[in-house]
């Protein structure tokens, strides 16, 4: 049996299905990514896993223990980093971390030791006596993580832990996740930022409309895409009329537009470059740069669902 196992889990809100028959396994020591757009069912899946919601059907096992029959025992193994900042503004960073760690049964000198360790790990030791309302966005995110890891859980579940922070703080958090994994924690990481999931995770599950539409190692997922490469075109300005013309090229399956960059998914991209350039030139579009790039998780998601991750 795998370390974490979800078997045919269904979660409904009234008539709406938020988690639709999801089955997946996660091995000990893995960083497992749950990727999907907002509202895909990632957070609901996580909430069911940490015991905040009860599944309507299906089973979840943590290290062989059914979470329905022993919820407190399984919760002890986990540390949950919610998507929202969840700590007390009226308590200092140290008091917050110490309180949440104590709820996992840590006490005495061990509690102080682990609290200090979590503060140091998240780079908040110097600010430990300050209240979080004085913290920057990045520091608040780090405190949010510290509150979940102080008791040294075997499983750390992170729900979009980098939402709304600057790139420097994001890098700090991503490095922390890797370090926590090196220290032995199994990590479940949800995000709609495919770059994060791609760089962090050993395996990835892609969720859309509550269904797990693909799951595996990044290489395995990339094989699901019909093409391993895409044409990337940078332009000075975008003319949306050209998109229709590009879509009419035989073999082009999808086009992603972001700022002035076009990602064109097509079979045999090398053979299509000429045709693409002719179409652009015909519409009077000046091309700044053109290249072939390996298909990423965003492209795979687009191929599988016809939608973009950030739609």
């Amino acid at each position, binding site marked *: 049996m795998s370390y974490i196992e979800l078997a045919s889990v269904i979660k409904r809100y009234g008539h709406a299905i938020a988690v639709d028959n999801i089955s997946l396994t996660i091995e000990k020591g893995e960083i497992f990514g749950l990727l999907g757009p907002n509202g895909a069912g990632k957070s609901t899946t996580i909430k069911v896993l*940490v*015991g*905040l*919601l*009860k599944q309507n059907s299906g089973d979840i096992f943590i290290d062989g223990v059914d979470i329905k029959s022993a*919820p*407190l*025992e399984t*919760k*002890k193994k*986990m540390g*949950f980093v*919610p998507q*929202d*900042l*969840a*700590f*007390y*503004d*009226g*308590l200092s960073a140290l*008091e917050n971390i110490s*309180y*949440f760690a*104590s*709820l*996992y*049964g840590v006490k005495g000198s061990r509690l102080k030791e682990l609290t200090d360790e979590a503060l140091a790990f998240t780079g908040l030791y110097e600010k430990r006596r300050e209240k979080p309302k004085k913290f920057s966005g990045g520091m608040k995110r780090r405190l949010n993580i510290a*509150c*979940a890891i102080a008791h040294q859980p075997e499983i750390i579940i992170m729900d979009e832990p980098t939402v709304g922070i600057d790139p420097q703080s994001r890098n700090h958090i991503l490095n922390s996740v890797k370090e926590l994994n090196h220290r032995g924690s199994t990590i479940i990481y949800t995000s709609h930022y495919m770059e994060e999931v791609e760089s962090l995770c050993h395996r990835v599950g892609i969720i859309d409309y509550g269904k797990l539409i693909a799951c595996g190692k990044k290489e395995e997922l990339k094989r699901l895409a019909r093409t391993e490469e895409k044409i990337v075109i940078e332009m000075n300005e975008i003319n949306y009329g050209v998109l229709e013309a590009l879509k009419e090229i035989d073999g082009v399956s999808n086009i992603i537009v972001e700022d002035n960059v076009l990602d064109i998914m097509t079979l045999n991209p090398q053979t299509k470059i000429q045709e693409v350039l002719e179409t652009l030139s015909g519409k009077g579009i000046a091309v700044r740069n053109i290249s072939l790039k390996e298909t990423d998780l965003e492209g795979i998601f687009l191929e599988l669902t016809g939608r973009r991750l950030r739609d």
Partner: protein
Amino acid sequence: MIIKVALKSIKLMFKNGVVLPLLIGLPLSQIFLIKKMMEVVVPSSQQMLHSSIMAVVYVNQGIENTMSQSYAASLLVMFILITGIMASSFLINEKEQKTMMRVFSTPIKKLEYILGNLLGHSVFMLCIALSIIFITKFAMAIDWGNSLLWILIVTMLVIFVAITMGYCFAAIFSKPKLANGIMSFVVVVMTFLSGGLTFNGAFGGLNQFTINKWGFEAYLALMRGESFSAIRLNLIVLLALGIAFTLIAAFAFRRENAYE
């Protein structure tokens, strides 16, 4: 676990620098003002009547004493109920700040969490109520009777009812402003209907349905030096109300998304 949650609640309550002096200072200033008004109004009426009917003077002296005592008791009950609104706000804030969600993801039972908060908030409110009682007793000569133990028991029961009523609101509402507004309205209406501040009767028996009446009358009986038998029914009603509110709150918090 219960103690840890209670300690956190006490810490959060006491760290709120504005609330504590306000909760003690407001009722004290009101009791002080009413007492001063009585000192001015009653002697002047005594002076007017002095030459004609001596008996009225004694009755008036009795009124002065009773009015101040009654206002003190009534205001204490009202402020305990208002502090109950605060306890409710703290719990709703936990929903808003998502800390309740985080707590429920840890290995703590919901009942332990509610009892921990109940204990913490009770200790905080008991400190406030006892401060009011002692300051009015020694600085304003309000006579709370001879039995400190029974005063303590009545106070604890009123606190119990106030907090658990607040928790019922906290379980239902997710916005503190809305819950506070409705609960404040309920407290004001109950205070009015109880007759505790107006002394104009029982509003056709409607005062029976107010928490204030049962706490207020118990305090008055103790102030008059009456024994336990005089307040037995009041204690039973307050205890029953507290238990009923606890059960309602516990039931409401059993909802799986009670943290939202």
